């Protein structure tokens, strides 16, 4: 019921949604994060800590399943070099009710952004390179989940 994939490969949103829908309930929520074009971004490089990533994502997914009574959770996160418009992350939750599915999906994304050990490096069109820094708004969003 919990499916977690981390790797360079792209994902098929339709197929992944079918997979979650096939595990019961009638409410499926999903979030897709892509590389945003903010003007002169050429690409992103995503690095992670493989031994810890699986563990961290599984803990987040398990908490979501128990707190919102989900039938299924799928988390896919890409690593490596990604271009503007490419998919980065996919979260799908399946539940009996709309609110549970949507809230759980939001919870998973908020926690993923502040807990799962991924790091993004920006490569600009002019060749400038910079590691993205943590955003205070992401930390606040993560901390608001006190359930």
């Amino acid at each position, binding site marked *: 019921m919990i499916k977690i994939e981390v790797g360079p490969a792209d994902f098929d949103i339709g197929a992944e949604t079918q997979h979650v829908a096939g595990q019961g309930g009638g409410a499926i929520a999903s979030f897709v994060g892509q590389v945003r074009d903010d003007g002169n971004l050429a690409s992103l490089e995503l690095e*992670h800590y493989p031994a810890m990533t699986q563990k961290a994502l599984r803990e987040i997914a398990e908490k979501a399943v128990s707190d919102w009574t989900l039938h299924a959770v799928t988390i896919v996160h890409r690593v490596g070099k990604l271009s503007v418009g490419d998919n*980065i*992350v996919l979260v799908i939750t399946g539940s009996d009710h709309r609110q549970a599915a949507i809230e759980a999906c939001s919870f998973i*994304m908020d926690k*993923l952004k502040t807990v799962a050990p*991924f790091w993004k490096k920006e490569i600009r069109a002019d060749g400038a390179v910079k590691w993205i*820094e943590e955003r205070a708004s992401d930390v606040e969003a993560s901390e608001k989940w006190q359930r």
Partner: protein
Amino acid sequence: MARSINIIYFAWVRERLGIDQEQVSLGDEIETIADVLNMLGEREAAYADIFADVEKLRFALDQDYGLSTSLIGSARELAIFPPVTGG
């Protein structure tokens, strides 16, 4: 008996140090993550620079988050990295 720990680095910590991991022997006086940072900083100035502001660093012992005050105990792996930025 001397303990040792594998230290792994990620993102700009890895780039600035120029290595992604190293095996380090720990004397009996090394109890916390902060002790490890101080020991490495005394060994090489580059470490002292990078570890100067622990607020900018995050730590994991055997793949669970810890604080600079956390005890190393019998952990086999210490990871040192910047705040995460996935998603």
